[in-house]
């Protein structure tokens, strides 16, 4: 009966418990991840006198407020400490598995979920955090929700959602050496705009996407929200199954075989229709850096920052001028050579092992000329990186090796960029004040951030490699 369907449509149909006349569906939620910031949602739940419907499908992780330096002492900041403790207390009271400050599995929720095999193809996963789109790399329908929705999922294990439209972004061809997933997604956002995918679920397809490992696919899906996407997804394949197999919460034995058989039916059928299609040539993507205060303000490192006079209209002129003023950049100046004050390597975008390897490959045998912080995305990433000696590469270069968490991506734990300072960052948002009041953020790949650390300026990593 049904014609060819997209990956998204298959998952949506399998999770719609009921659908209203206006097309809004009540979706069953398979996994709900919570973090310190979810305290509002817990508060609302308790205020309503309701209980958690499925504590066994709810997992709590401390990431936003945990310190990245020295965990031998209690958290000094009483408010941050309070939020970390509140999460632990809520988890204990409601019978939720909790990965707290001293857990060997602690880390950023979007790094740990996949590591533990909680993120599986064909599931619907939500979290009170916009970068939940990360989990779509597994062929999961995963999206960020607000606090009221957190309370709703806690109480009902379901969520009302208006059916989004679909957008397929096909990237064919081969990426140049030293061009990474981060460059791909920045190029995508520059192309379609920060609101380019609003109201849409993005499916990334094409030979360049198929060639990527799971961590790189997570980097791409992670930043779907920076293009306004409701979610980002990649069809699961043998790379996906190989990565998941054997992880703690992944199915085993007969359940694994049944799951893989099911997952092989998920990819979009030939002929399935998308509401919109965008095509990019992988070969055209260069190492990419943001110059402004929205992720769409991204350019090849070889480019020049725009001049307000180049804009089509007055609003465009004003938008460029305001961004250049905040960023302290001269209109038309070359991006390369822009002086950088500090470096941050980490976050749910680029805090995984291959990211750290890429940065270490540039830094090995070199010295950083500016301070920098390298923060693994999870304790597991930290362990693996240390086993390979990556920590020594970073510290020998003069950078600081931190404890896992969100850290300087958002600065909630106190890791802030000073006002007016310019930071080369592997995180996902260059918004005004994101890394601290008055902080100036340039988003780039781990290898490019490492190159910036060496040169003390925005540098084309291809010249160092």
């Amino acid at each position, binding site marked *: 009966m049904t014609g060819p369907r997209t990956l998204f449509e298959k998952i949506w149909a399998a999770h719609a418990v009921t659908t209203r006349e206006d097309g809004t569906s009540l979706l069953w939620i398979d996994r709900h991840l919570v973090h310190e910031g979810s305290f509002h949602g817990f508060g609302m739940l308790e205020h309503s006198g309701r209980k958690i419907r499925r504590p066994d499908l709810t997992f709590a992780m401390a990431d936003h407020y945990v310190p990245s330096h020295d965990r031998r002492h209690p958290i000094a900041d009483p408010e941050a400490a309070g939020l970390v403790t509140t999460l632990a207390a809520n988890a204990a009271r409601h019978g939720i598995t909790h990965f707290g400050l001293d857990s060997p599995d602690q880390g950023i929720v979007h790094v740990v979920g996949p590591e533990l095999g909680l993120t599986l193809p064909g599931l619907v996963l939500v979290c009170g955090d*916009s970068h939940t789109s990360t989990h779509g790399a597994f062929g999961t329908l995963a999206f960020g929700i607000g606090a009221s929705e957190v309370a709703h999922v806690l109480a009902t294990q379901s969520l009302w959602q208006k059916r989004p439209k679909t957008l397929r972004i096909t990237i064919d061809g081969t990426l140049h050496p030293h061009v990474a997933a981060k460059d791909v997604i920045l190029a995508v956002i520059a192309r379609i705009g920060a609101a380019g995918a609003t109201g849409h679920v993005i499916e990334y397809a094409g030979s360049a996407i198929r060639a990527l490992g799971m961590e790189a696919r997570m980097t791409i899906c992670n930043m779907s929200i920076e293009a306004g996407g409701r979610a980002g997804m990649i069809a699961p394949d043998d790379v996906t199954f190989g990565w998941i197999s054997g992880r703690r919460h992944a199915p085993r034995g007969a359940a694994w075989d049944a799951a893989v058989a099911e997952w092989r039916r998920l990819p979009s059928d030939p002929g399935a229709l998308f509401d919109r299609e965008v095509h990019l040539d992988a070969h055209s993507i260069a190492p990419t850096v943001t110059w402004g205060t929205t992720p769409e303000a991204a350019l090849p490192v070889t480019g020049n920052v725009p001049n307000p006079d180049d804009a089509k209209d007055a609003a465009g002129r004003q938008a460029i001028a305001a961004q250049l003023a905040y960023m302290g950049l001269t209109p038309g100046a070359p991006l390369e050579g822009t002086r950088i004050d500090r470096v941050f390597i980490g976050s749910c975008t680029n805090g995984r092992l291959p990211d750290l390897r890429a940065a270490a490959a540039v830094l090995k045998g070199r010295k950083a000329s500016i301070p920098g912080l390298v923060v693994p995305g999870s304790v597991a990433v930290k362990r693996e990186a240390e086993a390979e000696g990556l920590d020594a590469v970073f510290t020998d270069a003069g950078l600081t090796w931190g404890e896992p968490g969100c850290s300087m991506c958002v600065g909630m734990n106190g890791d802030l960029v000073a006002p007016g300072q310019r930071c080369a960052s592997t995180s996902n948002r260059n918004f005004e004040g994101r890394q601290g*009041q008055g902080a100036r953020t340039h988003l780039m790949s781990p290898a490019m951030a490492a190159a910036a650390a060496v040169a003390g300026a925005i540098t084309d990593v291809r010249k160092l490699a």
Partner: protein
Amino acid sequence: MTPFTTLSGPIALLDRPNIDTDQIIPARFLRKPRSAGYDNFLFADLRTRENAFPLRPHTVPIVVAGANFGCGSSREGAVYALVDGGIRCVIAPSFGDIFAGNAGKNGLLTIVLPDAPARLGDATHLAIDLPAQTITLPDGTVIAFAIDAFRKRCLVEGLDDIGLTLVHADALAAHESNLPAWATP
């Protein structure tokens, strides 16, 4: 939730695109309990940095803004700051999806209107009628707007989402009992 039917009052014009939720409420305030009141966190850094920033808490009930308002972080605190600061309605050409969802859950009406700053920016004052789905300008011009039927109903009636969902308890239970074995951890 406070029901929303009609609203009239002065506007603040934020004529810039991509106002993200980090601007609406900087991250350092998100640790505060809701009982603290979020009004003073509203645009805290922009208000400090730009003397002429056109929006202060408790001055207007309506904001007219540029495209992609509320993009970025899912923080519902952005909506709390607007609502606690006296804002009941934001009109923009487009909104971040998560922000718009959060708004509806807190009685904040978001109206999608192409070219909103150009069409409404000169009006000092607007009257909004949600049941009729109209915006009326001081000169009497009436502009119709579209809104999802369910979102409208929740706003007009001030409905509790969770209570509404539990009406479907049987369907939920049926779905739950049919989950494949591999889908639970």
